[in-house]
């Protein structure tokens, strides 16, 4: 499975569902700032990696997949759960990228400007995440995602 953009997918999600994700994400960002002021930046930094929007996204993915199957006349399915599992697997690769981002900021920021540091950190995030994706693809093969989702429907 290659990496590609499908803007049409944006229309499948309701505005209220986007709002829910922004609400959780924003709330945790504010919490991180409050905790950093109260207990120090290292505690605040922990919460910059808090899975704030994942539970809401996972629940919505599961619901959308179940609705899709219900429209096709299939009431009992585990496709939604397996779609969530694949989303979580992608998030695991993203978390490796996030760790690389944090390491670069930690090491570079004391000696370089914010712009340079954040650019380098974003490049590190992209490189590690894409490398993780490609290693996973090489390890498990091209068709694993589709096979896993469809084999137990």
């Amino acid at each position, binding site marked *: 499975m290659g990496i590609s953009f499908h803007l049409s997918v944006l229309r499948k999600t309701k505005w209220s569902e986007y709002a829910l994700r922004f609400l959780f994400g924003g709330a945790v960002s504010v919490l991180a700032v409050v905790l950093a002021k109260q207990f120090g930046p290292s505690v605040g930094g922990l919460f910059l990696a808090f*899975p704030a929007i994942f539970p809401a996204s996972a*629940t919505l993915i599961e619901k959308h997949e179940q609705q899709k199957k219900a429209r096709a006349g299939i009431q009992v399915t585990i496709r939604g*759960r397996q779609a*969530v599992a694949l989303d979580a697997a992608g998030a*695991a690769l993203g978390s490796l990228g996030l760790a690389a981002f944090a390491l670069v900021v930690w090491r570079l920021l004391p000696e370089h400007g914010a712009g340079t540091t954040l650019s380098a950190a974003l490049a590190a995030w992209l490189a590690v995440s894409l490398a993780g994706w490609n290693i996973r693809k090489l390890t498990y093969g091209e068709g694993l995602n589709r096979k896993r989702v469809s084999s137990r429907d």
Partner: protein
Amino acid sequence: MVAGAAALLLYCVVCTRLMLTGKFRAAPVTIGALLMWLGASFGAWTLFLR
């Protein structure tokens, strides 16, 4: 943030494994695993950053 990202990796792997079994719904798994994220991240913070 590095400690939080390591805890996030653990969170995602646990969610992936539990959801792949097909036995659990997304909400209890992803919300319940937040407790594990809190434990792992504060454990790492206590060990390495405090």
